[in-house]
């Protein structure tokens, strides 16, 4: 379990994080979202005890990160931003060192190293200096190190950055697999990642918490939530006006090609039916018609932009 209470970090001229209060329970995967410089990494650095907060507290499994740093850190696995590791070491030696310093000994050490090597598919590079590994392997070595001691709380700063789509998929499945009994916080820029692995999403900007909801809950804030997108075979200048006149339609957006129109209605299903009826009535040939469930990037932009304005 992870609890922060009015966590604040001020640098000389800048307040990086302001009064951040969060509570993350085991079984939750919290996605930490925000534009660059929003305070995501600073928050993670305070939770993991790297930076001391200016005020407020962070608590990992009942241990305050400032008063009981060793106890708190033992419960934590941390993947820092950019997955740093000592480049001259080979992953095998690196993982052995991480096990030693975390007090994982003997047969348990061998068992845990085998487990993470298997989970992250590192067997082929165990004896290659980390500096010579590809970005994807480096990231996975960083993840292996964070999972090594099977910590109840995992903090990962952009865990899938630099991975190819297959590796991203693999790491996300891995996170879902281990999520059941762990408290996991990940920061990411990739919004589809939030939908695929997170049970909860927090948006921060300028150090302030702006939204705290499930990914589905955030999606309902999207203006595209009940939208219907229709693509006509031939452009029709009257289409926009006609669609806008349908009952329950708030707005119609037209794409640059002049053929794709997004109809923002109040009820997705009803709007779709009306759009289809209108199309056949007017004799427009329809190339595609699909309902939209809302767009997370649009919610993200709305929330973070209104704050900046």
């Amino acid at each position: 379990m992870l609890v922060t209470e009015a966590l604040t970090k001020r640098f000389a001229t800048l307040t990086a994080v302001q009064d951040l209060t969060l509570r993350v329970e085991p079984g939750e995967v919290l996605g930490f979202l925000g534009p660059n410089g929003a305070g995501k990494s600073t928050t993670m650095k305070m939770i993991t005890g790297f930076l001391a907060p200016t005020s407020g507290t962070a608590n990992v499994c009942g241990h305050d990160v400032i008063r009981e740093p060793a106890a708190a850190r033992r419960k934590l696995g941390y993947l820092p931003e950019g997955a740093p590791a000592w480049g001259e070491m080979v992953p095998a030696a690196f993982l052995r060192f991480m096990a030693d310093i975390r007090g994982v000994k003997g047969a348990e050490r061998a068992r845990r190293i085998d487990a993470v090597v298997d989970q992250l598919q590192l067997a082929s590079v165990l004896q290659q200096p980390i500096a010579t590994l590809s970005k994807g392997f480096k990231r996975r070595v960083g993840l292996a190190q964070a999972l090594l001691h099977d910590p109840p709380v995992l903090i990962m700063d952009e865990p899938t950055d630099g991975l190819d789509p297959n590796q991203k998929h693999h790491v996300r499945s891995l996170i879902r697999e281990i999520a059941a009994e762990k408290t996991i916080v990940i920061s990411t820029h990739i919004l589809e990642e939030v939908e695929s692995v997170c049970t909860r999403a927090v948006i921060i900007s300028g150090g302030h918490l702006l939204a705290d909801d499930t990914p589905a809950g955030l999606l309902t804030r999207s203006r595209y939530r009940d939208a219907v997108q229709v693509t006509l075979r031939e452009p029709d200048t009257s289409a926009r006006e006609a669609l806008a006149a349908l009952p329950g339609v708030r707005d119609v957006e037209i794409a640059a090609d002049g053929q794709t129109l997004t109809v923002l209605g109040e009820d997705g299903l009803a709007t779709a039916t009306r759009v289809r009826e209108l199309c056949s009535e007017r004799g427009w040939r329809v190339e595609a018609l699909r309902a939209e469930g809302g767009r997370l990037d649009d919610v993200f932009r709305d929330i973070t932009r209104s704050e900046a304005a």
Partner: protein
Amino acid sequence: MSGILAIFRRELAGYFVTPVAYVFLVIFVALIGALTFYVGGFYEQRQADLGSFFGLHPWLYAFFIPALAMRLWAEERDTGTIELLLTLPISTTQAVIGKFLAAWAFTVVALALTAPMWWTVNYLGNPDNGVIAAAYIGSALMAGGFLAIGSFVSALTRSQVIAFIVGFLICFVLLMAGYPLVLDVFTGWAPRVVVEGVEAMSFLTRFESISRGVIDLRDLIYFSGMMAFFLFANVSIIEMKKAE
């Protein structure tokens, strides 16, 4: 303690997985050997002692030790591994001590590799081996003092080049503190106490007495105090500058 040990082992192994350690050891041993004969005038003195050998140590250390210490913290900061290291369940003090001890052990290895000098002088004559042993201990202590300074300077910056140059400068000034080059800066305007204080800081005068075979408690306290002070400063600087 196990934290210090794990850091120590990782660091020490780190020296030997890259060619840097071997280059360093070979050049150090070759240079100190050559200089003993050519600059120190080992043969010309026609004495069975290692005075000309130990006399070179402070000067070689002033150059080699900052080169060894420059990467200790600057590199961690530069590559971001400092964040990994300092979020492990160990304290900053343990990390500083572990890294320092590994670097010190490495210099002791370098020092041990000069043992053929000791055999040579025993082959050629009958030196006072007690004096030589004391001088080796003194030399290792002096290396530790220089290393603590180097480690501290390395924590100040993320540039290894700057760490080396500043480290070298501080070591050089401390060596020369008993000599007019440095003392003249203070004499004339500073009170006597300050001048004497600066003079007492000199590594060279301390080491000279040890290399004559006299291990004075004050010299031991001086070198241990030096190490303790700079390592403490090292820890404080890391804590202060973490965010950068």
